[in-house]
């Protein structure tokens, strides 16, 4: 076991990890930040997505030791400072972008990464960016709609409620 130190959601944290400890395991079991989910553990589903130094990353496919000294953001760090939902989170609620909610942490983190890179994406660009995020419930339609709405675009023409 070695001691790791990194910044998670703006706070400096330390914890113990083995070489093989995955970042998602470190977040969930050592830091007790269980908002980051494990859907597949095989790099497919994106439920475990977090940001490492501003980049979207599948935390089930990165060793915790690789995040030593890094700036990590998880779903727990996405709400506004006063605890209210961020624009992205609110859009998911408003447009029924989740059902069971299992994929949602990853969807929100992916959305944040997309909108940073491309603040006004087209529907096709949104769908392409979601390549690595799987949802078992929604059929994606309302997720795409939520993301378009979060980017400030008019979504009244995108399919039915």
């Amino acid at each position, binding site marked *: 076991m*070695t001691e790791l130190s990194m910044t998670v959601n703006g706070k400096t944290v330390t914890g113990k990890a*083995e*070489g*093989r400890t*995955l970042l998602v395991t470190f977040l969930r079991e050592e830091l007790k930040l269980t908002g980051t989910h494990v859907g597949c*553990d*095989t*790099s497919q589903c*994106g439920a475990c*997505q977090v940001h*490492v130094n501003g*980049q*979207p*990353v*599948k935390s089930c*496919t*990165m*060793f915790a*030791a*690789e995040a*030593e000294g890094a700036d990590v953001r998880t779903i727990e760090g996405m709400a506004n400072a006063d605890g209210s939902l961020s624009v992205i989170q609110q859009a998911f609620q408003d447009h029924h972008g989740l059902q069971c909610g299992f994929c949602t942490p990853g969807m929100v983190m*992916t959305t944040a*990464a*997309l909108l940073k890179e491309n603040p006004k994406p087209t529907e096709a660009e949104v769908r392409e*960016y979601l*390549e*690595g*995020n799987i949802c078992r419930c929604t059929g994606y339609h309302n997720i795409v709609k939520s993301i378009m709405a979060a980017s400030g675009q008019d979504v009244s023409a995108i399919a039915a409620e």
Partner: protein
Amino acid sequence: MHNFDFVKPGSVAEAAEALKAEDAMALGGGQTLIPTMKARLNAPSALVSLSGMAEMVGVSGSDPVVIGGATTHGQVAAEAGYPALAALAGQIGDPAVRSRGTIGGSLANNDPAACYPAAALASGAVIKTDRREIVADDFFVGMFETALEEGEIITSVSFPVPAKANYQKFLQPASRFALVGVFVAQFDSGVRVAVTGASEEGVHRWSAAEEALSANFSAEALEGLSVASDGLMSDLHGSAEYRAHLVKVMTGRAVRAAG
């Protein structure tokens, strides 16, 4: 996953030293290695991380375009002044995979369906290691096999920039690897065509197409050619015959898209 010692060297020389340990392996972005370790197909005694060395990260130059071995697909997609190569990098995996996966890792692994080997071979890239320089024609030896020796590290890859180039990938939708991918590069000296995803030997050049396209750079020049299915991969995603057909179709598309 079996446990291992995690080593994070600060320089290529230190990394090379650490890789001398028995059963030590280099860790690039881990996007292939970590899943194989979870499946216990790999159980290194130590992993030597190549991600912490500034000397191995970055994109520079305009011709050749030189890419550090530990540069991520995302960075190549955003920064490489070689449009066909940047487009190829931007289509690997998904955005999160592109934030971690590296060009050195992809080339060293030489997955028979990976995208980067096609770009390197078609462009006539030079792979620079901590020991020597290897031209792409000598680098790719077979499926998951390269000319790299034990513990040898890809420090950078140098890509000559063709006059025209394009990569067309027929996506295997579950893995996002190429079911068949073709990279076409037109240089003053001739055309090079590299095919990935098709052969049991991994990436290879299609010399009949190179000849035809060097004489006449148009999709029509391919009309009389056919690809034999001998030695091509056959699996639940596509038979050898299907892949053989796709090689020609994707080559034609690449030539058209290259303009």
